[in-house]
């Protein structure tokens, strides 16, 4: 089956623009994660969904960042009024169940450049 997919793969935005990044997890996966990876850094946790419920959003850097997963499958990460410091690769990952430590399968990422 297909892995986690993300779109767009690349996004260039002017400072102040709103962007929406999409994640299609592996079918049947209950858990979905968003991570932000700045240049030269490891991925950093943004938010976690269990089905449609957003159970942890402690990593969202500001109230300009918003994520949703309304039907428990596809998820969208929205960034309002983008700033240059938002430039990063945004990674989506999904895992099958609820238990901690399950393998997270990563998508290819969306590379966002804010000019």
């Amino acid at each position, binding site marked *: 089956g297909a892995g986690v997919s993300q779109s767009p793969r690349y996004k260039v935005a002017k400072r102040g623009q709103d962007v929406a990044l999409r994640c299609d997890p592996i079918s049947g996966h209950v*858990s979905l994660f968003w*991570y932000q990876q700045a240049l030269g850094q*490891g991925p950093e*946790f943004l938010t976690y969904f269990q089905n449609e419920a957003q159970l942890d959003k402690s990593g969202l850097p500001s109230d300009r960042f918003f994520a949703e997963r309304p039907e428990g499958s596809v998820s969208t990460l929205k960034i309002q009024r983008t700033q240059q410091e938002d430039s990063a690769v945004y990674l989506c990952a999904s895992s099958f169940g609820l238990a*901690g*430590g399950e393998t997270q399968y990563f998508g290819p990422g969306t590379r966002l450049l804010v000019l």
Partner: protein
Amino acid sequence: AQRVTQPEKLLSVFKGAPVELKCNYSYSGSPELFWYVQYSRQRLQLLLRHISRESIKGFTADLNKGETSFHLKKPFAQEEDSAMYYCALGGRNTGFQKLVFGTGTRLLVSP
């Protein structure tokens, strides 16, 4: 605070040489440790986890709670091992399931 430290940004070895990628962590509780790998132009993928105590592609890693380390080792490096390696920490204290990653080590294996 939960933290993962990978002290080396780049590790360069010759083919056939032993490899050790260092990872140290700070965590209160029972940690779950992982190694993820990203080959050129590919996505991040799980290499191994400490609870499985398995060897993947010749790599092993042992959790040392006394030294709070989870170093990745391979006795004889191959050119195809060249990649970016990330150590990651999971567990209840990091939140429900989220992973805390180190900054990564780039392994370059030369012929």
